[in-house]
């Protein structure tokens, strides 16, 4: 369970990106975070993966305060979360296989396990025949699927996707969304931030709508309400 407790984030000089957010995300839930650009979606995610610290309030994972993590514990926390970004963020000098293996290597995962898991993950995202391709030899959709496989490599409890389909065409978009739903069926929390009306309307899951740093709507079977 993830619990945002009275969380605010201010950027100097006078930008209040998040304003007193209270939010609970339950285990095995699929949550979409909707809102325009600048509404605070990315800030919320940055706080969750401890890329930044909240100005006020607490973010709890179970009874652990993410904001109070010691620097050397941050990598361990990040290995419990899988991250997917709009711009894929693959390592350009590593092949698809190596990108996924890297996420396992950072945690000191044994070689045998890596050699077993990576092909499985590549099969899951349907890219087993592109294992030795470098990111610039893959299409956008393929790159994002590699990124999803990487995010799943250390069997995270939470998968966070920040506008994962922002750079993709319609067909690839739905492929990615289906993949996310499949992952959620395997009992992983999925947090999907998006401003795409069709995705949210098509998902029929919980939708949290942000505007100007505040939650204006939290609907268990939500529709996109902004224009």
């Amino acid at each position, binding site marked *: 369970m993830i619990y945002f407790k009275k969380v605010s984030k201010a950027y100097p000089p006078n930008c209040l990106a998040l304003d007193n957010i209270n939010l609970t995300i339950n285990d095995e839930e699929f949550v979409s975070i909707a809102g325009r650009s600048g509404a605070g979606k990315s800030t919320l995610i940055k706080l969750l993966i401890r*890329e930044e610290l909240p100005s006020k309030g607490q973010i709890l994972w179970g009874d652990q305060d993410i904001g109070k993590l010691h620097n050397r514990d941050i*990598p361990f926390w*990040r290995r419990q979360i899988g991250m997917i970004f709009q711009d894929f*963020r693959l390592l350009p*000098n590593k092949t698809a296989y190596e990108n996924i293996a890297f996420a396992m*290597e*950072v945690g000191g995962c*044994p070689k045998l396990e890596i050699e077993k898991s990576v092909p499985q993950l590549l099969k899951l995202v349907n890219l087993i025949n592109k294992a030795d391709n470098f990111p610039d030899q893959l299409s956008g959709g393929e790159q994002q699927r590699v990124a999803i496989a*990487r995010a799943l490599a250390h069997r995270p409890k939470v998968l966070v996707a920040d506008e994962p389909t922002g750079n993709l065409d319609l067909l690839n978009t739905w492929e990615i969304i289906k993949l996310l739903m499949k992952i959620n069926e395997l009992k992983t929390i999925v947090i999907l931030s998006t401003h795409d009306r069709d995705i949210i309307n098509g998902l029929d899951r919980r939708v949290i709508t942000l505007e100007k740093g505040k939650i204006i709507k939290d609907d268990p079977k939500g529709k996109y309400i902004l224009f």
Partner: protein
Amino acid sequence: MFTTFVRIIKSGCISFWRNKWLSSSAVSMMSLAILGITSLLLVNVLINSLTANLEDKIDISVYFNLDTSEDEILDARVDLVKLNEVRSAEYVSTGEALNKFKDKHKDNSILMQSLDELGNNPLSASLNIKAQQASQYESIVSFFEQEKYNEIIDKINYLENKAVIARLTSITRSIRQIGLVILLVLAGLAVLVTFNTIRLTIYSSRREIKVMKLVGASNWFARGPFIIEGALYGVIAALVSLFILYPLLWYISPKITSYLPGTDLFYFFQANIIVLFLIQILVGVSLGTISSLVAIRRYLEV
């Protein structure tokens, strides 16, 4: 722990190879730096041998009265060489002095004739003294100003040579100082250029470093491969500069020897090749790793 270490090294080597262009530019920059530093070291060797040559030309002679016995002079010599400042003290007896004189002036028939007419040997015995450093002649001269030597010493040619010696001393000293300053300035330049090159290579990987951190890499896991890469630059650059320097010195050294007899750079290089190579590797590796460490720091704060 060990697996992590092996993975870091492997990843560093692979990325060195995959970034061939970036690596080769960093290596060539660094080779130039190491080449520069080594040549400065060699120039320093040259300067030292040049000043040593100059200083070797300085000496003073102490002439003894004609009636001084050889034993007295040799006793004085024994006391003299106990001084730290004295490098050598060569005894020239009256006979030797005469032979030298005759040898030097054998073509001058008038001198020879008058020497023959004189009958006995008019030349005094002497000690030719060389000091460790040119500035120490003053104190050697003062050694002979003791009262017991007053009676046997005819003259010391220091006073005549004093101005020349002082000049040479100051010249050799300033050559050394200028050489050192140039060495330091150029070495500093080489270090800065290398540091900046490495900073640029790391700057071009800043997104990668961030991604590594976001995927859950610890600081060392993200930083390690870059440090390995930096060290690799250093090792390869040291090898490259060695391979450039060897034929270069082989070609240049005889030319230098013809200007400055008694200095053989190529021989010096061959004799010290292992030490020099170790210095080059040490300079290269420490430049590479330290620059990487410093340059990567700001990109790790994610």
